[in-house]
Structure formats: structure tokens, C-alpha cells
């Protein structure tokens, strides 16, 4: 075991990783251009859906980072002190991710296209959120009037939609950024002031986040199919965001350790992260199944329409792959104690989960926007994923390299974390 660690260690973001992330961004931009310009037509809708998917995914991973550091502070955990810089780097990227989501949502809401409705009439609808943002849906007497949507218009209208997004993403970003900043300041000031501040901010964040994250998920994703609703949808998304966030934290830790950083982290820290990933994958399945089961059992047409479309031949295959990747894979790969202590096993489980939750979001978004006929898996899906992966890598590792040290060296529980042993 290495016993001499330099707590002055800073991450240097250079070399292959930086080149690859920039190349990935270029690939992403090309894929978006391909979808919008060269393909056109139906593919514009598909590109928008992919952009929404990835920007939501990006925001959720970063929120996962804020959530993780917040509950570590609130529970006054000692074990995690030495790895807090990684979730804090995710927290610092949240403002950028939020901005990207806002841009995508705005473009999708205000760019319209003509579609032919079921009754043969042509109408102009926005690319995203057409179910509630199309013109005339809530105007009494309009030929598009829809009583169900009109009843929901207090929540699903452009002003309240933007108010929700800006207030929630703004406060999550602000709190996440402040937690990371206080922790970084702690390195130089060194007293308990910053820790206490972070404790308070974390409590505020958790209360706010717990009550409002479901609203965020309802607004951004569930409203794509605005006639349908599920009160479990918010928790389902929260579970997904948390699993992805922790899987990403573990993956980044495995990577930076391979590059020779964070030598103070032992296999015990990975073991604890593995337990959280395992447990919350089960929780994700629990909520996923709860939502499915109640809908299936009650069998009310307006509710089961949601799963009916996901049971079309184009999606049915993905439906089963989704459960396999997000439930069976972590269940079998991480069940035993020894498995969580194997770096390679942890790495592959995290990769499976990161891909799996992409698919989870794919199944939440695509049936409601492009539908079974327009959905596919090709240049747009892969290209946009690669582009966002590059952006994520670039931003997160840039933020990681900005910390004065890769370890919160004046954290009051640091000694406990350095000697963490389970």
C-alpha cells in the first residue's frame, strides 16, 4: 500500500482525453447538422428528441453529483470525504448543463413544423411538447381545443414551464456551485466555517430537491405525452438520476486512479460506491415496476396508452433490454461482496448502467415524440450521445483540474476517510 500521498495534487486535463473529448464534440455537432440539414423532414424531430434526451441526461448526472455531495454533508459521512472532489466537479458543471437544456427546450418549443393529424387536417406544432404547446389547445372554442390539456394549463403553459425550469435549475445549480466552492475555500482557510456552511446549504438543497425534482421530471419529460400522468414518474426519474450520478462518480474515480491520481482511495471506497449503485438499481426497478404494475392492473385506457405504445414491435425489444441492463445486470454483477471490490467489475457495471439509463430515457422520450414509425437507432442517436459525452468529459475534467487540490485536505472527517476500511 502506498503510504505517502501528496495532498497538493492537482488534476491536469491534457493529452489523449482532452483530444478525444474535443473530437467527440465535433462528432456531435456533425451529427446534429446531419440530422437537421442533410436528412431534414422526419429526422429533424428525431434530432430534437435526441438533443432533449441527452441534455436531460446530462443535467440529471450533474444533479446526481450535487445530491451525492449534499447527503454526504447532511449525514456527516466520513468515508466519502477523500472523494468529494469528483461529485463536486459534477456539481460545478450543472450550470452549463442547465443552460444547454434550456437552449434545447427553447429551440424545440418555438420551432414549429406542419403535421397531418389523424383526422387529415394539417396543423403547425412545435417539435417538442406538441401535446400541450401546440396553438389553440387551451383556447375555448378553438378547433384544437382539448379539455384535458386545458385543465392542466396552469402547469403546462410556456410561462409556468419556463418559470419552473429557471427557478429549479437555477437553485440546484446555485446550491451545487456554492457547496463545491465552499469546499474548495476550505483548503486555504482551514476552519469549520466552510463545513458548517456546506451543511446548511446541503440541508436546504435536499429539502428543495426532494420536493421539486418530481416537478422537474413531470415538466421536462412526462409532459411530452401530456394526456398521461403518473405520480411515480418523479421518483422513478430521481432513482435513475441518482444511479447514473453515482455510477459516473465511480467511473471517473476508476479513471483518474488509473492515471495515477487519488492514490489515497482504496478498494473500500469503491466497495461503498458499489453498494449505493447496487441498492439504488434495485430501487429504480422497484419504482419502475410499481409504475408499470399499477397501470397494468388498473387497465384504464388513458393510463395504459403509455405502455401500449411502448409495447409496439419497434419498442418492445428495447423495453426488455431496459430491464435487463438496469436491473438484472447490476443485480448479478454486483451482488457479492467481492464483486464490489473488483475494479474491473465495477467499471463494467458502471458502463452498463450509463448505457442502460440512456435507453431508459430513450423509452421515456421517443414514443411520445417521434413515435414507433419515426424512432430508430442510428447516426443521430450515436452521434448526439458521443457529442454530449465529449462535452461532459471536457467540462467535468476542466472543473476537476480547477480545484486547488484533488482532496478536500482540511475536511474535518478526512482522517476517517483515509483510513476507511470495511
Amino acid at each position, binding site marked *: 500500500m502506498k503510504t505517502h500521498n501528496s495532498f497538493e495534487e492537482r488534476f491536469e486535463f491534457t493529452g489523449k482525453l482532452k483530444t478525444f473529448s474535443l473530437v467527440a464534440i465535433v462528432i456531435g455537432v456533425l451529427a446534429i447538422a446531419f440530422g437537421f440539414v442533410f436528412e431534414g423532414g422526419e429526422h429533424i424531430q428525431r434530432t430534437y428528441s435526441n438533443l432533449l434526451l441527452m441534455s436531460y441526461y446530462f443535467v440529471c448526472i450533474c444533479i446526481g453529483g450535487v445530491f451525492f455531495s449534499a447527503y454526504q454533508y447532511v449525514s456527516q459521512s466520513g468515508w466519502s470525504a477523500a472523494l468529494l472532489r469528483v461529485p463536486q466537479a459534477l456539481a460545478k458543471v450543472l450550470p452549463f448543463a442547465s443552460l444547454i437544456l434550456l437552449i434545447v427546450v427553447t429551440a424545440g418549443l418555438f420551432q414549429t413544423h406542419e403535421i397531418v393529424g389523424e383526422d387529415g387536417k394539417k396543423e403547425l406544432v412545435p417539435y417538442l411538447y406538441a401535446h400541450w404547446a401546440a396553438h389553440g389547445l387551451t383556447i375555448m372554442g378553438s378547433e384544437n381545443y382539448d379539455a384535458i390539456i386545458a385543465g392542466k394549463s396552469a402547469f403546462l403553459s410556456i410561462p409556468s414551464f419556463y418559470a419552473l425550469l429557471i427557478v429549479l435549475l437555477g437553485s440546484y445549480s446555485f446550491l451545487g456551485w456554492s457547496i463545491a466552492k465552499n469546499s474548495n475555500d476550505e483548503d486555504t482557510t482551514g476552519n469549520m466555517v466552510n463545513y458548517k456552511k456546506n451543511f446548511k446549504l446541503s440541508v436546504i438543497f435536499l429539502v428543495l430537491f426532494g420536493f421539486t425534482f418530481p416537478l422537474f421530471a413531470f415538466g421536462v419529460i412526462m409532459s411530452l405525452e401530456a394526456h398521461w400522468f403518473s405520480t411515480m414518474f418523479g421518483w422513478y426519474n430521481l432513482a435513475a438520476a441518482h444511479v447514473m450520478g453515482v455510477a459516473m462518480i465511480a467511473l471517473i474515480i476508476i479513471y483518474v486512479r488509473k492515471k495515477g491520481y487519488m492514490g489515497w482511495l482504496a478498494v473500500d471506497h469503491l466497495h461503498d460506491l458499489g453498494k449505493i449503485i447496487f441498492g439504488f438499481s434495485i430501487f429504480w426497478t422497484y419504482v419502475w*415496476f410499481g409504475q*408499470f*404494475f399499477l397501470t*397494468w*392492473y388498473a*387497465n384504464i385506457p388513458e393510463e395504459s396508452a403509455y405502455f401500449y405504445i411502448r409495447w409496439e414491435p419497434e419498442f418492445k425489444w428495447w423495453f426488455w433490454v431496459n430491464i435487463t441492463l438496469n436491473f438484472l445486470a447490476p443485480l448479478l454483477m454486483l*451482488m*457479492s*461482496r467481492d464483486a464490489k471490490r473488483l475494479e474491473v467489475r465495477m467499471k463494467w457495471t458502471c458502463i452498463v448502467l450509463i448505457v442502460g439509463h440512456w435507453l431508459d430515457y430513450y423509452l421515456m422520450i421517443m414514443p411520445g415524440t417521434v413515435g414507433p414509425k419515426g424512432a430508430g437507432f442510428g447516426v443521430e442517436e450515436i452521434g448526439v450521445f458521443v457529442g454530449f459525452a465529449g462535452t461532459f468529459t471536457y467540462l467535468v475534467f476542466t472543473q476537476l483540474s480547477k480545484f486547488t487540490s484533488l482532496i478536500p485536505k482540511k475536511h474535518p472527517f478526512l482522517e476517517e476517510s483515509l483510513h476507511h*476500511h470495511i
Partner: protein
Amino acid sequence: MSNTKFILGLFDDPDDMMQGIDNLQKNSIPIYDVYTPMPIHGIEAKMGVKDSRLGYAAFCFGCLGGTVIFSMIYYMLVHDWPMNVGGKPSFAIPNFVPFTFEWTILFTAFGMTITFFAATHLFPGRAPRVMDLRATDDRFVIAVSAKGNVPHEDITNLLKQAGAVEVKHNERKYVSYE
């Protein structure tokens, strides 16, 4: 030949006790067991205690529970007495999931408890056997078998050197609450 069966080193400080273990191990004196009122960090590694296999028992009991309830409701609701509930097919697997889940957990929990009791000889109604009563209160106890070839004097001295507050030469293995 003395009738001493076990030599117990009683410590009032866990660090001293760890020192005592070191002293004995350096002299290749096998330690029978160590009894402490609270968990001591890192003692398993020092003593070479193997990882618990309780997890494997838990997995087997979980599989058993899942299989039992699944076959049971299959027999009841599909084979023996199919009922029409809301027009659903009799063999509707989503229906079976909550039961299977609950029974898997139930069998795992009970199975683990029973396995643990069996492995540690603890049963309700059975007086627990302890080598020194104060090991459950405020003493950290190292037990060494007196049947080895090491002179008892040497063991006593090694324990005393490490800071044992008392060294007992017991002729009986257990003192019981009885």
C-alpha cells in the same frame, strides 16, 4: 501437570489487547479466540478470521423462498382454481412479482437468522456459554489454550507485558449464566 484448560488475558484497553495479540503471535502461540464487548476495527485481519459465508446462505434461502411462493401461487391460482380477476389471464406474471419479492426477503431474513443461530450455538432458551462474564461488559479477553507445549508462565508474562490487568488460569472452559 496442572488442570488448567484455558489461560485468559483480561485487558481494560483494546489497544493493549491488540498488543497482547501481537506478543502471542510473535512467539507463535496459537490464540483460541478473542472476546470483546464491542467490535474492534481490523481485528479479523489480524486474527486471520475468514470472511463470513452468511451471504451464500442468504442467497440460497432467497432462491428457496422465491421458488416456494412462485410454485405455490402457480398451483393455487393457475392450476387448481383459476379465477377471472378483471379479465386478466390466470398466469399473469406481474401479479406474482410482489409475492415473490416479499417471500424472497422473508426467507432470506429468517434463513440468515437461523443460520447465524446455528453457527454460533445461540438458541432461545439456551444459556449462552461465555469464557469470562466481563467480556460482555468492560474487559477485552484473549483466550489461549493451555494444552499446548508453551509453559504457562511464558504466556502469562507475555500477556502481562502487553498490559493485561488480570490473567486467569481456568480449569473449566466456560462459566455459564446458569
